[in-house]
């Protein structure tokens, strides 16, 4: 018995968009109590489908054809008023960004109670009570307090739970979840996924779950459809699709996923490229004449070494101090104590001018491929500014820039283009080229692949592996994605709340974690079981 039946759905994009149709000729159905995962690359039309079902398409985007039967009616053609009556009542939706999806100026309880108000359920006094019950149901701590709290007082995971509470308020028959966990860290993600599974059990609702993470798919999906460029390229049960993909694209997607396979640890060369000793960094936030500042120990007495030619993975959940450590090494953050020794010099002790002279030794590849290149400078300038400042002759620097562009696989001629003319993955390669242009001894890659699609992620990882081999580079690879870390690194360091809790060869850390925190972290990796099963 299908709750929703979509037939030949097409969604037209406005003129000037990257293609004519966001979604083309899609048909599928969802049965009651079923979780359907919709996967696919970024921009494949996943969100548009969801928005169309909710009647929330952005301006300029419109349904071009097809039907979507829900409860006996084509919800694509019913009037706006009817659609509004369905929304929140029989179909509910959760969005990707828990941080911005709640009204910052309204109390959580009120925002939940609003759903009842919208559909004229219960008396105003009861709504509060109902909201409280819902908050309990999604297992938010201290419900009495949460009802009165404002969104900013909640963590991302808590907000997402509040969103779910809202979506469940009127016991919808269909829940649409558009990447509800993408913005959360692994441990929180695991909790939310569990919550959704529980609720499905108890309420028996149908769930359309949009994601691009196959780990998540493995964890929760009953059935899967794979989308690409607005079309469905593959469909089937979770097991079928994951284990026996038919379409080329699905195969490539799956192949590109960093497997949970743990490579044997490689032997590491002897001479250290970087030595960190007793590093400390404390942030003081807020505070003023009459207020105590909030103190955050972002790095709390961390010591570690990276050998020449080694890739050290630094993992840990959000806020554990990974970025701060990386930035301290390149002195974008000045630590208050400790030493950072790069080929004999203590970077932490240098003054502004001395620092400028040795800075080239450690370079960084940044997380955001869009924000890390100056939009007004051609690639050539991005690649030559540094070397020229360092004293390399202009002509030589230009030549080198061309050569590096070849190395990262973009072609020498690309130096004359502007950043916006490249895709995200290509920009990330430019970022790598820029780091290499300085002839560094050590590269810090801070979430260098997190913003990228799985397929592109794989390319960049390959590139890094290749470069490391060719230039004997040391890399400090910061990530929160354990799978990625496992693929590339020789050793893994685990951070929690500013402390280094565990460090060791990949195989040891993964297969035999010592610290309890490492264990939780590993357990939270979505689709953990599936990854190992593939082995």
């Amino acid at each position, binding site marked *: 018995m299908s709750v929703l039946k979509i037939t030949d759905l097409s969604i037209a994009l406005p003129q000037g968009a990257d293609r004519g149709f966001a979604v083309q000729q899609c048909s599928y159905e969802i049965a009651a109590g079923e979780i359907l995962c919709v996967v696919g690359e970024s921009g494949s039309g996943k969100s548009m489908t969801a928005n169309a079902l*909710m009647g*929330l398409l952005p301006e300029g985007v419109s349904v071009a054809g097809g039907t979507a039967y829900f409860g006996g009616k084509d919800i694509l053609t019913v009037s706006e008023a009817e659609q*509004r*009556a*369905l*929304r*929140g*009542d029989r179909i*509910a*939706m959760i*969005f990707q*960004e828990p941080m*911005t*999806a*709640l*009204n*910052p*100026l*309204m109390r959580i309880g009120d925002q939940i109670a*609003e*759903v009842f*108000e*919208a*559909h004229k359920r219960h008396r105003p006094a009861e709504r509060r009570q109902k909201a409280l019950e819902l908050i309990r149901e999604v297992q938010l701590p201290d419900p009495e307090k949460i009802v009165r709290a*404002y969104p*900013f*007082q909640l963590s991302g995971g808590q907000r997402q739970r509040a*969103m779910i509470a*809202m*979506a469940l308020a009127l016991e919808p028959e269909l829940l649409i979840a558009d990447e509800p966990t993408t913005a959360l860290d692994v441990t929180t993600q695991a909790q939310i996924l569990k919550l959704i599974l529980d609720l499905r059990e108890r309420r028996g609702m149908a769930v359309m779950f949009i994601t691009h993470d196959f780990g998540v798919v493995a964890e929760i999906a009953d059935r899967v459809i794979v989308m690409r460029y607005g079309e469905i390229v593959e469909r089937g049960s979770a097991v079928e699709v994951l284990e026996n993909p038919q379409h080329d694209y699905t195969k490539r997607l799956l192949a590109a996923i960093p497997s949970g396979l743990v490579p044997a640890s490689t032997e590491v060369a002897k001479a250290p490229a970087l030595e960190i000793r007793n590093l400390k960094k404390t942030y003081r936030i*807020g*505070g*003023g*004449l*009459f*207020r*105590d*500042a*909030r103190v955050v120990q972002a790095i709390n007495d961390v010591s570690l070494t990276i050998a020449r030619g080694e890739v050290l993975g630094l993992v840990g959940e959000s806020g554990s101090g990974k970025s701060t450590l990386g930035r301290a090494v390149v002195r974008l953050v000045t630590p208050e104590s400790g030493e950072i020794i790069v080929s004999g010099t203590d970077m932490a002790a240098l003054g502004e001018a001395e620092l400028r002279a040795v800075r080239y030794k450690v370079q960084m590849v940044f997380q955001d491929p869009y924000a890390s290149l100056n939009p007004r400078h051609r690639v050539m300038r991005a690649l030559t500014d540094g070397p020229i400042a360092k004293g390399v002759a202009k002509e030589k620097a230009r030549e080198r820039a061309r050569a590096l562009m070849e190395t990262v696989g973009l072609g020498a001629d690309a130096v004359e283009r502007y950043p916006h003319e490249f895709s995200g993955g290509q920009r990330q390669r430019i970022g790598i080229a820029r780091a290499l242009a300085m002839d560094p001894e050590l590269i810090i890659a801070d979430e260098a692949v997190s913003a990228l699609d799985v397929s592109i992620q794989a390319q960049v990882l390959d590139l890094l592996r290749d470069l490391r081999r060719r230039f004997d580079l040391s890399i400090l690879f910061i990530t929160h994605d354990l799978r990625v870390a496992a693929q590339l690194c020789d050793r893994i360091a685990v951070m929690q709340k500013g402390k280094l809790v565990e460090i060791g060869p990949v195989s040891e850390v993964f297969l035999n974690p010592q610290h309890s925190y490492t264990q939780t972290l590993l357990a939270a990796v979505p689709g953990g079981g599936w990854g190992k099963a593939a082995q």
Partner: protein
Amino acid sequence: MAIAVAIFSRLLKAAITLLAIAILNFFLVHAAPGDPATVLAGEAGAADPQMIADLKARFGLDQPFYIQLARYVGNIMTLDLGYSFRQGQPVLDLIMERLPATLILTLTAFWISLLAGVALGVAASARVGKFTDTLITGAALLFYATPLYWAALMAVLVFSVQLGWLPGFGYETVGSGYGGLARAWDILKHLILPALTLGLFFMAVYMRMTRASMLEVAQQDFVKTAKAKGLAPSIIRRRHILRNALLPVVTLAGLQAGQLVGGAVLTETVFAWPGIGRLMFESLAARDYNTILGVFLVSAAMVIVFNIITDLVYRLIDPRIGQKA
């Protein structure tokens, strides 16, 4: 508690700023050519050097500059704004006499412009690209571009002189003997034209700001959430969009409310409104140092007070502020 502490620290900072401003103003005002003695002597139509010397001694202008400055600073530290020799009255009294008129005018203008501006901005944003929107934005642009004093002149010409509906100038009917409600009504009638002309410009400002802000907030994720709940558009607009969109408007309004106090010089001049803007302008012409300095200080204090009020309002609207710490 946090609020009390915040206000206290703000006040302390404000006091320091005020003192610095007072000193700067002192230099500024004394840099102007001429002095109150010569002006006063000049107006008498006859003066001899003795008279001017007498006046200077009386005003303390025969003292070295640094002593005058030290005295002035000493005075304001004890909250004494000094004495207006020209008007023969303590400056504070003079200002207090004039302040109510200014406050009535500027606050009325302020509220009219704020309420109307926000209302129009909401109306325009609700019908983006439609005729209503074009009409409202067009009118706002026009008000925005019209010199205030010119609008004032034209308003007097039309409503007071041609149509005779409203008094063209003044604060109330002089010597009418009205009391209570009759007086209030009388003042209100006098208030309409100046408050409207003063308010037009700001109304345009608020309208544009509200419209832009509404449109921007309407793009945000939580609005989509609200839609997904099945809320009616009018509720979404009021409860979700407007409240968030008001934040920048409040900031701007706070800035301008402060400025309004001293910024009504033109309106007060054209409409013969006995406020402190005019007092400032006239005292400047007469080089009545203490009075100008007093007006400046009071209006600077007003700016600061309004800033603090703005912050408080902001805290009321936005729970995020002040609670993080």
